[in-house]
């Protein structure tokens, strides 16, 4: 079986969990004898291509005939036009975008004759333009390659997936790693929501990373539940070097690691920290990461007068992330809404017991973790205190947690995904 897979990022150049998940799944599928053609907007060349062929969309030379463009539009007349609503943008970036647009830039038609598209593969001002260009390039890739199934990861690639389906007539799977409701709470970006919904409606099957996400897909996007499958993510620790770190901080360390945004529930972490500090002084809380709520959180910590026991590290990358796990005694993920959540698994693997919110997909897979509701700061404080004060609890969670996390692997997820492919192919053969 051969899969044409559209992604947006791939290790080592990642800014979130999406790239890591794509890599793990691709690797797992390769184990199952599924051949993957992985398309990404911008490949640098140092990606691990041993597990599948990587197609760099920035390298694709578009045809120079007008008939090609006409043909494209005939197939994909549903493509939305530019709206000016752009996700993932800060205030300054948006202001810059508006100025550029007013000066007449940025409003080109995206179906060119010939040439290549220099994708950035980032999440910048021209994100929507890149999403459309990506779909256009996908039309050529779909024509030139041979495959059985199309698989698109997250809304950025759904258009590409749909175009490929229209051109090739092959069945499409869209993979939901996060929904707009997870990212923005109830203040959804309409453009993104519409794209997500379009993708799910056009797809033959929708794969969600947890039951939590599957429910959102069914309830909030109105997708027929017989077409929605939950396949949990896993972690791949092979090839990861063990780092020897001496714990430098004298106190016990409780860590929050992630973007400091509404979705991740940083304020619940702080409120619980303040409660714990009243009972257990020999502990240091660390909030690692950055985000739009960072200053507000710093302010709150100062207001509670716990700043000498509460550290902010700013944004961490690469080795520093592993360092951070190694310095931790307890890891907390109090997410308000988390489709899956890989980071607790990383912590468990390092032998750090974790507290996770029930509102995370990963809570569906993990047995050996403390689980609380994100809003229940008393329960969160209780769990923190328990892990600090009762060594037996901590030791048990460490040992069993490490075992549990090592037993998770992408092979199981890949088998489930392969089953979805097979079901789809069977259905399309019947139909």
């Amino acid at each position, binding site marked *: 079986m051969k899969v044409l897979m559209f992604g947006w990022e791939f290790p080592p150049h990642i800014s979130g969990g999406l790239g890591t998940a794509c890599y793990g799944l691709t690797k797992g599928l390769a184990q199952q004898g599924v051949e993957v053609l992985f398309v990404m907007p911008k490949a640098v060349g140092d990606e691990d291509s041993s597990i599948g062929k990587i197609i760099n969309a920035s390298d694709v030379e578009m045809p120079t005939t007008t008939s090609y463009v006409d043909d494209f539009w005939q197939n994909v007349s549903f493509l939305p036009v530019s709206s000016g609503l752009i996700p993932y943008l800060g205030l300054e970036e948006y202001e810059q975008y508006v100025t550029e647009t007013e000066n007449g830039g940025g409003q080109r038609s995206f179906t060119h004759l010939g040439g290549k598209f220099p994708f950035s593969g980032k999440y910048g001002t021209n994100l929507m333009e890149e999403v459309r260009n990506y779909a256009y390039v996908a039309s050529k890739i779909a024509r030139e390659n041979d495959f059985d199934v199309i698989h698109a990861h997250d809304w950025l690639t759904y258009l590409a997936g749909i175009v490929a389906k229209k051109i090739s007539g092959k069945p499409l799977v869209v993979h939901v790693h996060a929904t707009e409701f997870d990212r923005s709470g109830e203040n959804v970006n309409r453009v993104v929501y519409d794209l997500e919904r379009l993708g799910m409606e056009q797809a033959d099957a929708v794969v969600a990373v947890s039951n939590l996400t599957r429910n959102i897909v069914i309830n909030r996007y109105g997708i027929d539940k017989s077409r929605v499958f939950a396949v949990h993510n896993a972690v791949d620790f092979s090839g990861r070097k063990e780092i020897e770190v001496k714990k430098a901080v*004298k106190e016990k360390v409780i860590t929050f690691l992630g973007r400091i945004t509404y979705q991740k529930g940083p304020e619940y972490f702080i409120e619980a920290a303040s409660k714990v500090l009243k009972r257990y002084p020999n502990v240091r809380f660390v909030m*690692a990461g950055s985000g739009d709520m*960072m200053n507000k959180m710093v*302010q709150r910590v*100062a207001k509670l*007068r*716990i*700043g000498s026991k509460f*550290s902010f590290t700013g944004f961490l990358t690469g080795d520093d992330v592993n360092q951070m796990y190694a310095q931790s005694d307890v890891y907390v993920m109090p997410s308000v809404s988390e489709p899956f959540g890989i980071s607790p698994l990383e912590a468990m693997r390092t032998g750090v017991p974790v507290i996770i919110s029930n509102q995370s997909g990963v809570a569906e897979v993990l047995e050996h973790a403390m689980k609380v509701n994100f809003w229940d700061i008393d329960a969160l404080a209780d769990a923190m205190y328990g892990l600090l004060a009762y060594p037996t609890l901590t030791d048990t969670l460490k040992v069993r947690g490490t075992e549990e996390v090592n037993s998770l692997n992408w092979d199981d997820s890949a088998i489930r995904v392969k089953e979805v492919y097979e079901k789809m192919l069977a259905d399309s053969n019947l139909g």
Partner: protein
Amino acid sequence: MKKTLCFYFQIHLPFQLRRYRFFDIGNSHQYYDEFNIRNYLNKIVEQCYLPMNKVLLDIIKEHGSKFKVAFSITGETIEQLEQYAPQVLDSFKELAATGSVEFICETYAHSLAFLKDEKELERQLKKQAATIKKYFNQEPVTARLTGLMYSDQIGERVANLGFKAIVTEGAKHVLGWKSPNYVYSNVNNPDLNVLLRNFHLSDDIAYRFSDRSWSEWPVTSEKFVNWLDVVNENEEVINLFMDYITFGNRHSRATGIFEFMRYLPKEVFSHDKFEFLTPSEVIKKHKPVGPVHVPYPISWSEEERDLSIWLGNDLQNDAFTSLCDLGEKVRFVDDASLTQDWERLQDSDHYYYMCTKWMSDAASRRFKSVYSSPYDAYINYMNVLSDLISRVNEAVAEKVDLLMKDSHYANEISKFVIPHETEYSSLQIKKIVELLGQKAGKSLLESN
């Protein structure tokens, strides 16, 4: 009677913190950014200290002991000059040797901690006085505190340490209808003279001098002396207090600030109505006209003339509480390097960077922040402080353990500590210190 002009210049260079990350806590105890410290120092030396010292020396050469100025140079600054620019220190020594220059005493580390810590005011003022004696061979009688801070209570504490005068801001909300141009006294201790800054005339030089949108621009020596002239003839002393970086840094050489100062004394003397005196001479000549009531601390900063740029928000207050909580422990362990780090973290400049007052307006600030935001400043400072706290706690635990081994103390100390506790509170340490004091007193009696 001739009207007195009293010039006093403030000099302070902080020990700038380096980017100290969470991962440095427990790993590195090197907190300072030597490169930036040195860079900034070199810039100020070239722009201000060397050229302005030369201007002052030239004036003194021309007019002799008729011309007087006062300086306050923090101990931290002297440390830095000693290390990186000894020629500047020599130039200040040369000024000291003329007899026309008085050195004012302040907290060695430009500290804020004296607001909360009873003992730190005395320790740092004495340390600074010893430094002034060592370098400039003077025994200071005049004091000033960080940001020209003053209150009735602070003044009383300073008086108890033997100082005869203190300089502060002639804040409007404190003076009301009264004029800053007299000597006043402290409410609780009438022996302490209070000199008040004339902020109009001081800021004409310190801030407005190079402001081309100001209707009075350009300020010439003649013009400035005319302004001095119109001050009510019964008023006695005009205090012109400002940062030394006014000359050459805030107002660049091109604005003519050096020429203005170079020829100001000549113009002043030509009127024959004025004389220059230093603060300690001012209080010999002029008696206080009455007490000045300052129930709440004032300073020379901002429109409000209060402490809000240093201790005005939660970030600053959280950091300050944690810092001051260390005092008792630092004195207990009495370790040179811990004391030095604790002292340097008291520098008000660290707190200035955490100020959020300017986030909405772009008003002119005394100096620029090296951090991207007050939050950033807070995070960096707290990381350093956290490391210091853990070092101090470790040293405290060691010393307590040692004392516990001594049968002389063990019984009594164990009354209020649980041995091998990970962290003792500063209250417990305070009790141990008191106990040690009593024991020492007793053993003295016994040996007698």
